[in-house]
């Protein structure tokens, strides 16, 4: 197993595999889980391969006496207890690890707990990503800038099919859906550019449904925000409706966000558990300046 592993790592061009080259605490938790489980699983694979090899080597018909009659063996309590016991111990250990990691990836990144998180709404439409910064009051399409050393909360939802928001080097994926908002916690330790994409099949333009992530120090980030505010055009409702049209777009930047005129499906606008508001109605409701107060009653 590890031999095959090396061969393939060489084949992929010596670059470490994205998922195993984490640049943030959440992806780090996941990469650790993956590496640990690969090691444990390699032992099982090696054990099975070894037993199989020994059996085939020793008990081939060609190695046996012609009159040899294999015995009747019902089973052995001790052997079977071991064969149940060891897997149970392994599964128990992995379960423990899994549960711990679950709570880690579903909370603010480890070590960043005391810092104020940056909230970014990430909405997908066929086949684009719209990033809204409610506090900074700016919006981008198909790219997102984040500060390093600060927790980021992505609020995910979709104008269309289920999509999955994924930045392999920063955090695992989570679904973006039409009638509810999901929260993905992450943080970037190192400045750099990262690949992000929709991982869940969403139709014709799925393959190109990607976005760029750039992590930079807080100071640079603030400069970028100021620059956008100075130079970018405002995002009007007509413009946003135009952006939602199915198709691919390049990257673009706007001042203001769509959250005012098209509130995300959360809180009282959510379809989830709050049946009285359908998605269609959401799109017609005009509720400006509510985004800040709304972050309080979200689903976690």
């Amino acid at each position, binding site marked *: 197993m590890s031999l095959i592993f090396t061969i393939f790592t060489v084949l992929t061009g010596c670059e470490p595999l994205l998922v195993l080259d984490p640049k943030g605490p959440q992806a780090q938790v996941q990469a650790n889980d993956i590496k640990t489980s690969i090691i444990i699983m390699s032992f099982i694979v090696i054990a099975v391969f070894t037993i199989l090899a020994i059996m085939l080597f020793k008990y081939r018909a060609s190695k046996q006496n012609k009159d040899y009659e294999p015995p009747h063996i019902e089973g052995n309590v001790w052997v079977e207890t071991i064969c149940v016991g060891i897997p149970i111990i392994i599964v128990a250990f992995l379960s423990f690890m899994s549960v711990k990691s679950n709570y880690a990836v579903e909370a603010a990144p480890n070590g960043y707990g005391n810092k104020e998180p940056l909230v970014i709404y990430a909405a997908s439409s066929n086949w684009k990503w719209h990033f809204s910064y409610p506090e900074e009051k700016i919006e981008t399409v198909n790219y997102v800038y984040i500060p390093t050393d600060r927790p980021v909360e992505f609020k995910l939802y979709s104008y269309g099919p289920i999509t999955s928001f994924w930045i392999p080097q920063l955090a695992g994926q989570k679904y973006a859906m039409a009638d*509810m908002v999901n929260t993905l916690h992450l943080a970037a330790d190192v400045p750099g550019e990262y690949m992000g994409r929709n991982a869940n099949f969403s139709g014709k333009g799925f393959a190109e449904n990607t976005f760029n992530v750039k992590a930079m120090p807080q100071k640079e980030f603030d400069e970028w925000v100021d620059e956008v505010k100075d130079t970018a055009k405002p995002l009007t409702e007509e413009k946003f409706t135009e952006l939602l049209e199915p198709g691919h777009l390049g990257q673009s930047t706007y001042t203001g966000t769509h959250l005012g005129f098209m509130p995300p499906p959360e809180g009282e606008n959510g379809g*989830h*558990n709050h049946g009285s508001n359908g998605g269609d109605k959401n799109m017609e409701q005009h509720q400006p300046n509510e985004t800040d107060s709304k972050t309080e009653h979200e*689903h976690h």
Partner: protein
Amino acid sequence: MKELFPMKQIMGFVFSLMLTVVALAVYFLNMSFAMGMTILVVTAFIQAAVQLVVFMHAGETKDKGAIYTNVYYGVAIALVTIFGTLLTMIWGYN
């Protein structure tokens, strides 16, 4: 002559009418959600058991093991599906 009279069936019918009346209490009386659901769960499952044993003769042949296993298994998996679905579709998000 004794078996001519369908005692078992009549008892079953009266019992199921009584259970229906008890269940109706949740409509006519004011009570908490938990209390109401408890009453409904209890009465519904007893009613189902009455039908199964009294009217459907589930236990009368040597296949009763298979029949009861089948019913219990079906009910168990149906409950797993219902509560699992509620857990993943609703409760998990609160």
